């Protein structure tokens, strides 16, 4: 009924196991960086990582060898340029090969929505006249409307073993309130077999307005209070996006050496997210 309130280390250890399909969602906003770092610290392997926009945290997970496959629709550092570790994995198979299952944003949204709805597939008018379907025929197929005869595109549902979200607030029953840009978080949450949430704070009463995006506590497996858990992404109402860090990441991730050194110091070399924040100068 009520989710387990656990330290993040325990929540990740309990739910993220080698070989699972894991979605860390949040569109630019509320990206669960702390959870991603903890997965790296626990040296998980062979994960199928799912995310519309891989972002820096997937660059880190991929560069640290946690992933065997990536399901995605746009893999860049927004407004800055490449994700160098993602590129290195695809172009040079470093630190290992990375299988990709690639879509458009509209397609990823449809796949999550189908998973959330308990359907085996979803449909869209999309991919027409592109090379995407030919490149990914296992996951992109035509379908005919039984009423109009029109050909549309069908995509298989995404149902992650584990979806991890970051939110501003949970109450003591484990009800979780996300506010601001939510991306496909709702669909990723409802599609998941297991939902793990990190939050900025746990409060006695959510005080969410009616019709807010509140996930009932009985759907959440574990909640960890991790202040700053989305940094360098952001949590509306708590702290802004560290755009300067996103720009700095371009240099850090550009070479294997600088990346590995940075990860050793700031992620593997820190015990938890509070220590990570101190080490990158975000606090303290």
């Amino acid at each position, binding site marked *: 009924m009520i989710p387990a309130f656990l330290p993040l280390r325990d929540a990740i250890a309990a739910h993220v196991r080698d070989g699972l399909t894991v979605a860390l969602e949040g*569109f*630019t*906003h509320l990206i669960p960086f702390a959870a991603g770092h903890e997965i790296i610290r626990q040296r998980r392997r062979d994960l199928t990582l799912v995310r*519309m*926009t891989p972002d820096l945290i997937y660059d880190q997970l991929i560069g640290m060898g946690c992933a065997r496959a990536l399901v*995605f*629709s*746009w*893999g*860049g550092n*927004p*407004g800055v340029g*490449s*994700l160098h570790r*993602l590129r290195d994995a*695809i*172009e040079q198979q470093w630190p290992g090969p990375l299988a990709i299952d*690639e*879509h*458009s*944003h*509209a397609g990823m*949204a*449809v796949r999550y929505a189908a998973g959330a709805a308990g359907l085996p597939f979803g449909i*869209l*008018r*999309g991919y*027409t*006249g*592109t*090379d*995407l379907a030919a*490149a990914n025929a296992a996951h992109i197929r035509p379908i005919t409307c039984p009423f109009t005869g029109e050909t549309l595109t069908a995509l298989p549902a995404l149902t992650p073993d584990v979806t991890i979200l970051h939110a501003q607030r949970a109450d003591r029953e484990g009800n979780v309130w996300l506010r*601001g*840009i*939510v*991306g*496909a*978080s709702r*669909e990723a949450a409802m599609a998941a077999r297991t939902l793990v949430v990190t939050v*900025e*704070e746990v409060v006695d009463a959510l005080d969410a307005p009616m019709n807010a995006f509140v996930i009932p506590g009985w759907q959440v497996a574990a909640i960890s209070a991790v*202040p*700053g858990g989305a*940094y*360098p992404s*952001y949590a*509306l109402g*708590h702290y*802004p*996006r*560290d*755009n*300067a*860090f*996103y*720009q700095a990441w371009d240099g850090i991730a550009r070479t294997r050496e600088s990346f590995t050194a940075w990860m050793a110091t700031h992620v593997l070399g820190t015990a938890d997210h509070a220590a990570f924040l101190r080490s990158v100068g*975000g*606090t*303290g």
Partner: protein
Amino acid sequence: MSAYTSDEMMTVAAARRLRNGAVCFVGIGLPSAACNLARLTHAPDLVLIYESGTVGTRPHVLPLSIGDGELAETARSVIPLPEIFTHYLQRGRVDVGFLGAAQVDRVGGLNSTVIGPYAAPQVRLPGAGGAPEIAAHAREVLVVMKQSTRTFVERLDFRTSAGRVRALITDLGVMEPGADGELVLTQVYAGVTVEQVRAACGWPLRVAARIAPVAPPTPEELAVLRDLQTRTRAAHAARVRLDGVGA
């Protein structure tokens, strides 16, 4: 203020294409600059939709990412991303979609996926994002790209989105599709020659019988654009500290 860069001219030329009241699906970077320039000059009622789920947004500084808090805080409504693609784009409610890419071909096809073969690329690019469906569903598609023979190519390495372009706005001029769909040079900027445009294009570029002149940026356009970009640079340079968080 008479001097201006070719990037500024390109942004201004893109902004001028937006009629007041149009509903624009805005991408990050140059399209975002052009749309907000238009909104802050001749088109105050432009409706800006960013794929992150912000509808009718009026940012004071340009976002670095497609989902900066600035976009949410100045939006008329913030909705789940899937609805942006279903209720707005696919349902046909978007007037203008902006795209950019790493490669464009002579019919306006775009590549933002790979350079080289898909299975073993020389350069892995970010990928499709919203492009395929913007190209398919926006009433009008504008592409903004700096010209070079490396990017304006005879043959795309990968077709990320189909050619369906109303205008391709470059740093040298503007191309628009002819009756057969092939892009034709219709405008060049002041101080640019047709030969320069041809030389920076990887296919034999068709040129319209009559090339329309393009007025240089007005002082107001330049001032608003530079002011916006100065504000933006300052905002993005500030490091974030979380000392109060969780206290």
